[in-house]
């Protein structure tokens, strides 16, 4: 579904994304895990079409959407995105935020209302329609952002550290919500985070990123049984078991 080939993005002399290649199959959740500043946000912005790559290309459903000299606008890519700091529109109510993100222009007023109502139900936000984002708690804002990104029923959902500002209980609730939605809506997700627990709990596969490069890609078990280097090991908290046993004993 999503295919990234040899993608490079530079900001002046800084190489934010360095020859990254990744694949993401339909219905899969791929987490990109890496420390702050390693280029995760930049990678997502490239996929969304906000940035132009310096080298390489991105394909969505077999169609080239980003190349150094050709770029298809974000609104033509059929994707949803949750921004690192949410970017809810402060001048619109919850309902307006969600309705404005409804892509199709062919729907009439009642159909649009119906779509908005449906997604609000799914995400447990009924009763919040007329509120403004600054009158919501962190978790509620997070759910509005989620509703907004899903209302158009995109096939691909990009998430940039969507839960990093929440406490662990809320985090757990939202991860559950996300997992159920993913099955209902047959979503493919790219989930960016610096938190390994989060990565482990949502991922089908994990890509470990550092300094603009992908260090290793695989399921948690694959990476755990054969980490390519110390950095991956440290970042996923992988201990060699015999050693820790001996210490305990």
């Amino acid at each position, binding site marked *: 579904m999503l295919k990234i080939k040899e993608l490079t993005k530079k900001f002046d002399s800084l190489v934010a994304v360095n020859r990254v290649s990744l694949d993401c199959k339909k219905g899969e959740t791929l987490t990109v895990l890496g420390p702050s500043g390693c280029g995760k946000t930049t990678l997502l912005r490239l996929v969304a*079409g906000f940035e132009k790559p310096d080298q390489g290309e991105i394909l969505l459903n077999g169609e080239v959407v980003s190349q150094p000299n050709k770029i298809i*606008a974000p*609104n033509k890519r059929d*994707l949803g995105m949750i*921004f690192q700091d949410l970017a809810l*529109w402060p001048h619109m109510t919850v309902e307006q935020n969600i309705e*404005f*993100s409804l892509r199709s222009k062919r729907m009439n007023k009642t159909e649009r209302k119906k779509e908005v109502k449906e997604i609000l139900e799914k995400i447990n936000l009924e009763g919040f329609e007329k509120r403004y984002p600054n009158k919501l708690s962190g978790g509620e804002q997070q759910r509005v952002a989620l509703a*907004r990104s899903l209302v158009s029923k995109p096939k691909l959902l990009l998430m940039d550290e969507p839960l990093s500002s929440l406490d662990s209980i809320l985090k757990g609730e939202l991860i559950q919500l996300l997992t159920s939605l993913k099955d209902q809506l047959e979503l493919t997700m790219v989930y960016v985070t610096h938190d390994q627990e989060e990565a482990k709990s949502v991922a089908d596969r994990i890509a470990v990123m550092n300094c603009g490069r992908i260090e290793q890609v695989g399921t948690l078990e694959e990476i755990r049984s054969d980490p390519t280097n110390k950095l991956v090991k440290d970042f996923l908290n992988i201990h060699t078991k015999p050693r820790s046993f001996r210490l305990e004993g």
Partner: protein
Amino acid sequence: MHNRLVYIVALALFCIIVLAPILSMFLDSFMVEGKPSLSNYSEVLKEKRQIGLLVNSLILAIGTTFFCLLIGVPLGFLINRTNIHLRNHFSYLFLAPLVIPPYISTIAWIHLLGSKGILNIYLMKLFSVTEPFFTIYGFLGSIFVLTLSYFPFVTLLTITGLKSFDRRLEEAAEISHGSWDIMKKITLPLIYPYIFSAAIFVFIFSISNYSVPDLLRVNVYPVEIFIQFSAYYNHAKATALSIPLILILFFLIALQRRYMGNKSYVTVETSSREVKVRDLGWWKGIAFAFVLLIIFLSVLVPISDLIFTSRSINAYVVAFKTAHPQIINSFILAFSAATVMVILAFIVSYITERAKKVLKGSLDFVSLLPFAIPATIFGIGLTATWNTPSTKFIYGTSLIIIFGYVARFIPFVIRTIGSNIKQIKVGLEEAALISEPSWAKRILKVVAPLSKSGILAGWGIAFVLSMGELAVTLLVTPAGEATLPIRIYTLMHYGAQQLVAALCIILVCVTLLPIISIVLIGRLSRVQIAIK
């Protein structure tokens, strides 16, 4: 306790300089021959003239506001959001009209497009007609000149608005919409408070401008008030006359406060993301021509006309010889007034920012009051307050002019410095409390340096406006203490064209002098200042 004393002195000065004239002129209007009476008002209201004045004033102000928005908002977008040619230069050049006082550009335009204007004479010859097609006199000309003087306020606030919100709010919409929808539903609504404020300010400036309608013979409130005062010396009636105008201005200021709320007028460029610059493509040429035309009409035409009219270096020599006392006087007065304003404004906005909610709201509103008082009325108020035997040391000297400048322009400075102080978190100051127990030193070492850009900008604005001030000075200036604008205005009536032109150019240059130094010292260009 130390700080209390400073607060009290500053607030007292603010009240004496700014509020006393407003209050005393109000009280005076309810007095007839020493007794309380409403007859000034009843007399004024009976006159049919009121309606005519009101209509004229509204036409002028609404027309100017409309055209300022029409020019100023697109210009802000072009400069901030597109790859227009010379983008970096336009980002400060658009402010240039602000250093040319409106009456100076009016003088130039009369010279070009007056009934005997050189351009009109040329056109009449060319088409062999005896009447000019268009003269600068009247409503159209006044709106034209005022628009070219005031549109930078709109552009400035538009740009500040565009910089005030996170780019991601627009990106979040890019996921689902094209650029036109985003502009309509996200960008414009987000900067709407800024545009609305700009519109109100332009409206206030143009409805209370005296010089332009006076020179271009449009009968509006400020002109009529001035006549009442200077010809009949009836200041109570003059004040009563202006009450409808003051009420309108009050209402607008309250409205502006409501919409703008606590928004900042200064945005210090954040290090995060640069704005996405849109490629104008095919429109690039047209956009460039549009911006050039605006700069051409608002700056190049008046300035080159004046240079052309002054004709020779000799005119400047004569100008210096005859007017050097006024040149020096103007500079010193504007310099001192700007400095006083910055100090007062700093303390007042510091108190406002750190004060409790109720006090905060009222201080904020009071500091905007001078906007609601047309300059000519302010002049009357100053006279009523200070023209007493015991205050001759103020009324009879240049001090009264400084008072006038401060009273009229301090709102600008408070807005500018205040929005800067707003960005300094209380925590930063408390952190300094640990190592620096002296309040004064903390202010000087922590707060003042952090609001440096606001202070410099505030000073610059205060200086520019004071250098060009005419309406108040005209009413209160003591004998023999004339300023350069007064000199220009009176010489005009004697038809000394060449000398007037040279003096106008000198005025603009002297105004620019400290501004250029500030830009060089403070690198003002990296900070966007907006006036509210």
